């Protein structure tokens, strides 16, 4: 089932991607072409096969619950688009 323009608009919203109106037909075609390739998977028999998430099947390591990082707020905020008094600035969220 091919994606329609409205599906692409919904996906773009989920991904918080602002697309130009003019780009929508191209991106709809490209996504349908990619999903056509991906749909070849459906013909593969995977009954009884466990999904593989980590190639070596390792699990996440745990570490001791200790403070190991020092505060680097200034270094990190120096590269932010907008900060004030040590806070990141965004457009007003609450009226």
């Amino acid at each position, binding site marked *: 089932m091919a994606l329609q323009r409205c599906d692409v608009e919904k996906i773009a919203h989920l991904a*918080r991607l602002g697309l130009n109106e003019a780009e929508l037909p191209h991106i709809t075609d490209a996504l349908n072409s990619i999903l056509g390739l991906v749909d070849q998977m459906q013909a593969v028999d995977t009954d009884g096969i466990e999904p593989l998430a980590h190639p070596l099947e390792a699990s996440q390591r745990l570490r001791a619950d200790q403070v190991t990082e020092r505060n680097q707020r200034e270094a990190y905020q120096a590269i932010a688009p907008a900060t004030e008094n040590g806070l990141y600035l965004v*457009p007003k969220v609450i009226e």
Partner: protein
Amino acid sequence: MHQLTLAEIARGLADKSFSAEELTTTLLARINSLDPQLNSFITVTDELAVQQARAADARRAAGESGALLGAPIAHKDLFCTQGVRTSCASKMLDNFTAPYDATVVAKLAAAGMVTLGKTNMDEFAMGSANESSHYGAVKNPWNLEHVPGGSSGGSAAAVAARLTPVATGTDTGGSIRQPAALTSLTGLKPTYGRVSRWGMIAYASSLDQGGPMARTAEDCALLLQGMAGFDANDSTSIDEPVPDYSASLNASLQGLRIGIPKEYFGAGLDPRIAEQVQASIQELQKLGAVIKEISLPNMQHAIAAYYVIAPAEASSNLSRFDGVRFGYRCDNPKDLTDLYKRSRGEGFGVEVQRRIMVGAYALSAGYYDAYYLKAQKIRRLIKNDFMAAFEGVDLILGPTTPNLAWKLGAKGNDPVAAYLEDVYTITANLAGLPGLSMPAGFVDGLPVGVQLLAPYFQEARLLNVAHRYQQVTDWHTRAPNGF
């Protein structure tokens, strides 16, 4: 001096034939005069390089030694380098100065390597031609009308053109091996977890792996030695001892069992590449290797599974680029949603947007089982194929790519046409196995690569076989005209 390999540089610096500073200034001048033809660097770190070279010379004068001390390198521009722009070849990070060093960068700098600059790449490592860079396409030094491969295309072109002896690359679906093949280099994707991913800007976290790109296997061994090892900062780093990769380079290949997967020689492979691969098999037989035909029946499903898993992980990883904490922010956002949408819509290029959207779709409610879970099951089938094959052979050999380097722009706007170029390399990422591409000839003046795959953590074996092959062939010594 620019023709020297890393191993030759190490000897030259040790016997004081030249200093690190002399070598560095020679290469910087070469980059300045030749790179405008190639566009292989995004940032040249002249001052930093000279400073690091002087420091290395001082360390050597004080009695220190080491194969990497004073040797130049270029880093793919997704390894964070403190105080230097780390752009990922994206408008999104054009203004991003990394506040810390990636583990790989820190380890190589501590060993005394000199950073010449940051190399061009496909935006966020998504591509096989290095055409999706915000900073423009990279040209292949073997023919300036052709692509160098990708996504580590800048690293490949810079090493092939003798602008740097070695470079780092990363490989998520073939991004070290494929450009190495298309530019006549030796490139190694290590076992997943062998090289730290900390500070390496993530594309698909369960597939990404950094590795060395060089002209020879001997140089890859030296560089991998400096890159590999456990890192507590990378939660998927594997705590395995690192062997001496140079020690086994000359080991005999007598009786080595090499498997040739019949699926690698089917429709879609350029017959002229097949011929060169056959010739390399004969060379390895002369060196004592025993050839066996094998089968990897699920290989044909790898691209489909990859183009679910990689975009799904990318859509999650790239959600951090929101215009708030770092990177590009749109002008005059009217509210928070507008800030996110326009910053991401304007900051990401078209291929990155496509993959984010494929990933967001595959992970969205109602589709997860049909896409992501299905792809992970196929991933296990692919791994099982390899495990079965490695019961009967020590190594697997085939072409690295189905085609030669194509002309710039030849794949147009059809993403799927380019995706199919990764058909032979993607399986190693899905299974987490180490893989190496080595130069194996030329067709119409364009390089051909042969890929070797080994069981987990057997990078030393790959380097050994490639090194022995390079003792009886000279493909890796040839330089492109004009470079």
